[in-house]
């Protein structure tokens, strides 16, 4: 008998190529006769182009072509609505395509023999600008009379949601305590290590082919075909190795412009490949960001801790174009009341167009913002009620029987209670004789952390406040612990019929010697192709080593859907399992080779009605986290000494990769919470380098990070697996702020908690 291929930490099938330098990323690809493309970015946040002169650039040394808006057949794109021009210019078939709406709008493409020649020629393009008034603050953009950025919507409101459940007045009437807060969450840059790049050419079948790093091959193909006004069959998209994504590659970067270049050149008789590589600065202004949001919220609870009411108002900065703002906002709408049952709820959320870099998909997809407000409110309620934060959560947490704010039960296998207990237990919480949860009475041993305060860790006072007080006399360091929990959907929501395609081909005679899996899903670094090989091996009962993967090429396989919404293990895993089982049936029927394809359809969801009621999602993942911080009261520095993340993943198909996702998500979320400080001035990005936009280095990670895998099976996931890669991100900022409050008694409702912000919070009295 073969050993099972799932539940094992098998080494990644892409790792040997990645550690030897053989793995080719888009910027590493070379083809004979290749030309190089450079892009002219707007550099202005809001302006009309009244004149564009490319004659000098076109005549420059080495230049083969200059392309502008006039060269784009259908000059529009956008994943949700097509509100963004491919190229902005005065001559375009598309109304409104003469206006740039953020600094990263693209104006012209220069294709030349060398990259240096292409970039030099960019400087010869003459643009005549008419600057337009800037719309930068969402609250102002929503006011009547504000400058309108798009013709299709009023007051710059790109999208809005409304939830009405129960009777809000009755809910607050029943409350013994009410807490209110205004929370502000920052923009975050993805900062994947591989800047945008790609190569386009005409393949042997005459297809315009783009090799690029994206998150959804078939969506890229569709966007290219639309802009070029071609049937999708004439476009081919291939993903080589992808250097990180995190949501930042969902929207188009170089896909359409590269395809346009190869196609226009071919029409002019120049059948040469075209390559482009964005610089780090171009990457940072050129792709979308995590949405900044402002969340006003008021919650009520009874003395026994039961939540009675929540009122929430969310304003998200959508930036210049829609990207996926409508869907991101939908997730914030669902998560801004936390993973709890609340009988009376009103939520009003809107995403607003501004002249900032577009808000886009980023790990957690609106969930981190919603959870920051919700979990900070829970921490406030716990204090107001004099109740332990874990105890308060367990009294309200969603279970299989309870209803979401959308009036429907959460799909089965809800592992929230288990994750909360797992995180709390790992952090030292205990139950008293009455079964009530109580926080750890001593601090964690922080022996890996800097011990600069000389505090005796063996000092064992029972009273936490007393202990903290004793400490503050001894040094400037104060420690605190925080707790937070979260949940998020797996897969696409709100009535979209989720689907995923896979094909499996079996070769051999008496036994299966080789199984080939054809799957389009993007391995953005999360290990998707390894886990799909494990899924096939398990379904076929063959060793993992006999599975060969053919991946991410629209010419060779159907649509597996996006590498987003923590969906690929669940969706593509079911597709691979279905195809493998069907192929195995044919194999047993003596088919040689035995081939089968399978399209997995997820359970149906619905759009929300006028009151926000409906069944938005078919699956969820769950998380609970605890952390200990040390705050230097003199400098405002916050160190996370220990971080615990318990994640219900349903079934860990590859525990090592699951652990890697938890660790990576937590560190990314700690960057968001503590240090990543996006700055703009008048619509210009000031932090357009990795030396000004600081992400965590190896010295910025917690001294100790403990992932805890919880496995409550999802009833429809492959082998019980549910999606998990976003969930460890969700409540981290709230857990850190709760810990900082515990340490300092200063509540931060805005982050990142840079030393400067913390110091000001500690030393400057708030109005």
């Amino acid at each position, binding site marked *: 008998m073969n050993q099972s291929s799932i539940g094992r930490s098998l080494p990644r099938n892409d790792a040997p190529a990645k550690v030897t330098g053989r793995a080719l990323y888009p910027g590493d690809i070379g083809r004979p006769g290749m030309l190089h493309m450079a892009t002219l970015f707007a550099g202005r946040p809001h302006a009309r182009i009244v004149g564009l002169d490319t004659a000098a650039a076109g005549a420059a040394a080495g230049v083969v072509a200059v392309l502008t808006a006039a060269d784009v057949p259908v000059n529009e794109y956008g994943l949700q609505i097509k509100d963004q021009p491919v190229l902005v210019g005065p001559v375009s078939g598309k109304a409104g395509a003469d206006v740039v709406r953020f600094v990263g709008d693209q104006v012209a493409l220069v294709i030349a023999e060398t990259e240096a020649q292409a970039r030099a020629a960019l400087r010869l393009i003459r643009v005549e600008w008419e600057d337009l008034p800037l719309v930068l603050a969402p609250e102002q953009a929503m006011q009547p009379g504000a400058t309108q950025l798009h013709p299709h919507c009023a007051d710059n409101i790109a999208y809005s949601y409304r939830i009405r459940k129960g009777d809000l007045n009755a809910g607050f009437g029943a409350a013994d305590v009410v807490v209110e807060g205004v929370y502000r969450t920052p923009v975050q840059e993805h900062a994947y290590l591989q800047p945008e790049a790609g190569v386009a050419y005409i393949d042997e079948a005459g297809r315009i082919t783009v090799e690029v790093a994206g998150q959804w091959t078939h969506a890229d193909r569709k966007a290219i075909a639309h802009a070029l006004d071609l049937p999708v069959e004439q476009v081919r998209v291939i993903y080589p190795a992808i250097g990180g994504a995190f949501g930042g590659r969902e929207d188009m970067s170089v896909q359409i412009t590269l395809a346009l270049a190869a196609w226009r050149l071919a029409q002019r008789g120049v059948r040469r490949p075209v390559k482009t590589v964005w610089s780090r600065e171009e990457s940072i202004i050129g792709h979308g960001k995590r949405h900044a949001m402002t969340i006003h919220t008021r919650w009520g609870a009874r003395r026994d801790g039961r939540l009675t009411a929540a009122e929430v108002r969310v304003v998200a900065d959508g930036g210049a174009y829609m990207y996926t703002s409508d869907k991101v906002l939908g997730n914030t709408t669902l998560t801004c009341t936390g993973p709890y049952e609340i009988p009376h709820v009103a939520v009003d959320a809107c995403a607003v167009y501004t002249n900032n870099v577009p808000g886009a998909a980023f790990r957690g997809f609106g969930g981190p913002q919603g959870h920051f407000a919700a979990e900070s409110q829970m921490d406030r309620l716990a204090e107001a009620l004099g109740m332990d934060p874990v105890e308060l959560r367990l009294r309200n947490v969603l279970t299989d029987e309870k209803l979401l704010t959308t009036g429907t039960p959460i799909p089965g296998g809800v592992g929230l209670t288990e994750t909360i207990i797992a995180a709390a237990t790992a952090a030292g919480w205990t139950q008293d004789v009455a079964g009530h949860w109580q926080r750890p009475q001593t601090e964690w041993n922080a022996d890996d952390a800097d011990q600069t305060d000389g505090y005796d860790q063996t000092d064992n006072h029972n009273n936490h406040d007393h202990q903290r007080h004793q400490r503050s006399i001894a040094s400037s360091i104060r420690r605190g612990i925080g707790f937070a929990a979260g949940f998020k959907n797996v897969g696409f929501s709100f009535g979209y019929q989720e689907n995923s395609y896979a094909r499996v081909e079996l070769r051999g005679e008496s036994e299966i010697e080789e199984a080939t899996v054809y799957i389009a899903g993007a391995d953005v670094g*999360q290990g998707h192709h390894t886990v799909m090989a494990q899924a096939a091996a398990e379904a076929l009962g063959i060793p993992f080593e006999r599975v060969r993967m053919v991946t991410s090429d629209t010419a060779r396989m159907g649509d597996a859907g996006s590498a987003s919404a923590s969906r690929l293990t669940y969706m593509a895993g079911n597709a691979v399992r279905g195809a493998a089982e069907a192929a195995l049936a044919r194999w047993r029927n003596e088919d040689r080779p035995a081939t089968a394809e399978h399209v997995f359809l997820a359970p149906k969801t619905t759009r929300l009605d006028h009151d926000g009621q409906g069944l938005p999602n078919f699956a969820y993942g769950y998380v609970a986290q605890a952390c200990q911080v040390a705050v230097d009261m003199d400098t405002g520095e916050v160190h996370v000494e220990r971080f615990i993340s318990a994640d219900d993943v349903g079934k860990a198909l590859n525990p090592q990769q699951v652990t890697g996702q938890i660790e990576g998500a937590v*560190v990314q979320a700690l960057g968001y919470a503590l240090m990543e400080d996006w700055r703009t001035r008048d619509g210009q990005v000031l932090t357009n380098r990795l030396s000004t936009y600081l992400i965590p280095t190896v010295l910025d990670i917690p001294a100790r990070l403990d992932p805890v895998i919880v496995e409550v099976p999802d009833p429809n996931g492959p082998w019980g697996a549910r999606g998990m890669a976003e969930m460890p991100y969700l409540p981290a900022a709230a857990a850190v702020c709760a810990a900082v409050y515990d340490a300092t008694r200063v509540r931060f409702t805005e982050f990142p908690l840079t030393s400067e912000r913390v110091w000001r919070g500690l030393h400057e009295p708030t109005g």
Partner: protein
Amino acid sequence: MNHTIHFTVNGEPFTLSVASHHTLLQVLREQLVLTGVKNGCEAGECGACTVLMNGEPVNSCLVLAPEADGATIVTVEGLAHDSQLDPLQEAFVAAGATQCGFCTPGILINSRALLDRNPDPTDAEIRAALVGNLCRCTGYIRIIDAVKAAAHAQREVQP
């Protein structure tokens, strides 16, 4: 203006005509097609382009090509010998220390430099050595584990 440089890359001698304003990174990637050396920022901020120059790790994007004249360079492509992976490469595969993998070559090179001068580094020494290499995927935990495992494996072979 062009310079002629003589240098050794991954054990092989080369004589190249290089543009005087080009970086070592450009020469390695474009002229020698050693694309395992990654370009993440071209400003010494991310560490993805790290190579060994005369045994010391350098950001190849900050070295002008003529400065490499006479130097001995090792890139990620030169870590394995006769298809035998470096203990670090084996440890990175086994530990799951690579996710997207774009930072991996630079981190492997920097780790090699560390183990060459310190075969038994502490956690703190590993962290200090890798502070110039950004990774956005892994949270660094598995990378530290892999370097420790490689150091251990290397000591087993060469006590």
